[in-house]
C-alpha cells in the first residue's frame, strides 16, 4: 500500500484533495488538521516519515493569469521522506490571505525551525508555536515579503547602516 492509500484509508473525507502527478504523491488538507496529520505521518510504522526534507510556500495570486481558481492565496508545501521505507509524500495546506497563520512543526522535526523562518521571511506566513520566528535571509528592517507575487522583483529598498 502506498503512503497515499494509507492516508486516504485513515482520514477519508477529511482530505481536501489528492493526486500523484508524475508519481509525486500529494495530499491537500486544511490547516486545522496539520498537527494531527504530522503526528500520523511520523508515528505510523508503515509510513515512518522521519525526514521533513523540505518546507516552502507558493503564492497563487492571479495563478495562470487568473485562469485557474485556487482555494486560497497561499499554499504551504511540505515534502516528507522516510528513510526506512524509501518513500516520499508531499503535503499541502492552503493558507488564507487574511491572517496567514499555520501551526508550527518544530516540535516534531528540528529542520522545520529554519524552513519556517524562511517561509515567514519570504511569504509573511506566521507559524504558531515557533520558538523564534524572525527573518533569516533578509534583514529585520526589510519591508514586505519578497517572494509574494505582488512584490515587484526589481523593487529597491534603502540601504541600512550598521
Amino acid at each position, binding site marked *: 500500500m502506498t503512503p497515499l492509500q494509507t492516508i486516504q484509508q485513515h482520514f477519508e473525507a477529511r482530505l481536501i484533495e489528492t493526486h500523484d*502527478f*508524475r508519481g*509525486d504523491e500529494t495530499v491537500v488538507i486544511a490547516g486545522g488538521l496539520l498537527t494531527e496529520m504530522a503526528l500520523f505521518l511520523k508515528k505510523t510504522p508503515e509510513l515512518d516519515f522521519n525526514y521533513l526534507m*523540505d518546507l516552502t510556500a507558493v503564492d497563487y495570486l492571479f495563478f495562470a493569469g487568473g485562469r*485557474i481558481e485556487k482555494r486560497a492565496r497561499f499554499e504551504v508545501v511540505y515534502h516528507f521522506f522516510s528513510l526506512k521505507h524509501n518513500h516520499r509524500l508531499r503535503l499541502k495546506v492552503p493558507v488564507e490571505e487574511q491572517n496567514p497563520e499555520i501551526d508550527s512543526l518544530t516540535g516534531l522535526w528540528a529542520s522545520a525551525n*529554519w524552513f519556517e523562518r524562511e517561509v515567514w521571511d*519570504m511569504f509573511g506566513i506566521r507559524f504558531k508555536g515557533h520558538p523564534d520566528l524572525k527573518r*533569516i*535571509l533578509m534583514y529585520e528592517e526589510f519591508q514586505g515579503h519578497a517572494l509574494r507575487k505582488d512584490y515587484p522583483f526589481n523593487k529597491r529598498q534603502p540601504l541600512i547602516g550598521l
Partner: protein
Amino acid sequence: MSETRSMLLNVGPSHPAMHGVVRLVMELDGEKIKNVDVEIGYLHRAFEKMCETVMYAQCFPYTDRLNYVSPLINNVGFALSVEKLLGISIPERAQYIRVLMSEISRVTDHLTCIGATAMEMGAMSVFLYMIKAREFLYELIEEVTGARLTISYVRIGGLKADLPSGFTDKAFKKIAQVRKVLIECDSLLTRNRIFFDRMKGIGRISKEDAISYGITGPFLRSTGVGYDVRKAHPYLVYDKLDFEVPTGSTGDNLDRYFVRMAEMEQSLRLIEQCLVKMPDGAIASDLTGEIIPASQMVDMAKLGETENFIEDEVSLDPTLEGSTRKHHQAINTSDKGVILPAKENTYGNIEGLMNHFKLVMYGHGIQPPVGEVYRPVEGANGELGFYIVSDGRDEPWRVRVHSPCFAIMAALPQCLIGDKMADLIPTFGSVNMIAGELDR
C-alpha cells in the same frame, strides 16, 4: 568575589575562515563554546524570485551560481526536474555524459572542502596539492563546456554540446593524476598527529539529530546512515553503474573527512565506468558534404542554394563546438518543443529557424503542463532538490531549491556547543558551507 560572565565573540561575515559570508555569534565560557547564533543571508541573490521572471531555459545561468564549486550538479538537477515536469527522457549517451560531469564536479567539490579545511589547520601543502588536482579536473570541464565556473552546460532535454574528440584518453590521464594526488594527501593527513587530534571526536552529531535536522549527504553518512539519492532514487544511469556508498560511524569531523576521501575514489570509479560504457555518439556517423562557416551558410540559404545542405556541416564558433547536426541526435531528445534544433537546420532551412525562434521568444518557449514536481539529485553536500510549479506558461510559477547546506547550517550550533573555540575551524570546514547554495 568577582562576577564571572560569558564572553560574546563575533566571527564573520567577512572572515577568512568563514568560506564565503556567514556570521557566527558565539557565547564563550573561557574557551568553551556555550551557545552559537548562526546568521545567514549575506549572499542572498533572490534565485527563486529571479527564476519566476525568466523562461525555463534561462534559469540555467542562475543555477550555476547556487553551489559554485560543483555547478554541473545544479544544472543536472534543474534539468531533471523540468524534464520530469514535461515527462520526457533523454538519449542514453546524454545520460552518461551528465553522470560523468556530475561525478567530476563532486570530486572538485570534495577536493576544495578537504583542501580548505586542511589549510586552515596549517597544512598548506595539502591545500596546494588538492587545488592542483582540482585544476586537472577543471581542465576537463573547460574542454567540454567551454567555461570553468559558470558553465550552463546542461539543457532541458539534453546538453549544450557533445564531448570533444579525444576526451576519453585525456580523462583517463587526468584521473590517474588525481589519484596520485589523493594518495599523496592521504599520506600527509590521515596519519598526521596534529590533523588527527584536531578532527577526532570534534563536531559530533548523533544519527537521530542529523535525521531530525534533515541532513543528507556526506554529513549524514558520517553518522552511519547510508542514504544516498543515487542509490535510493536512482536517476540517469546510476543504476547501471557499480559504486559503493561509504559511511562512517561516529559523526565527527574525522569521519566526514574519511567519507569524503572514500567518495572521491568512488566518483573516480564512476567516471571511468562512464567513459567505458558510454554509447558512441557522433563519431559513428559521417557526413560527406563540405564544412561551411556559419555566416556563409546563412547567406547561401537566403539565396536558396540549399541542395547539398543535407550532407554539409557548419563550422561553428568554439563556444558552440559539438552541437552540430551529427552530434545533435546523440545527446538531445527528439521533442522539438523542448530542444533547440541543430545549427545546420537553424541556418539552412526555414523550419529550423522557426523552431529556434519559437523556443527563444517570450511567451513561446518550453511550456510544461500545469502541475508540480519535486526531483532530488545527490549534490556534493547532500540532497539537492528542485520543486517546480508550472502554470502552463513558459515561465515557471515557482522554483524552489532545497539546498543541502541549509539543513546542515541549522544544525551547526548542535555540533559546536561543548567544543573549544578553536574547534570551530575544522567543524565549520567539514560542513563545506557554500554560501551561494545556502542563501540562494
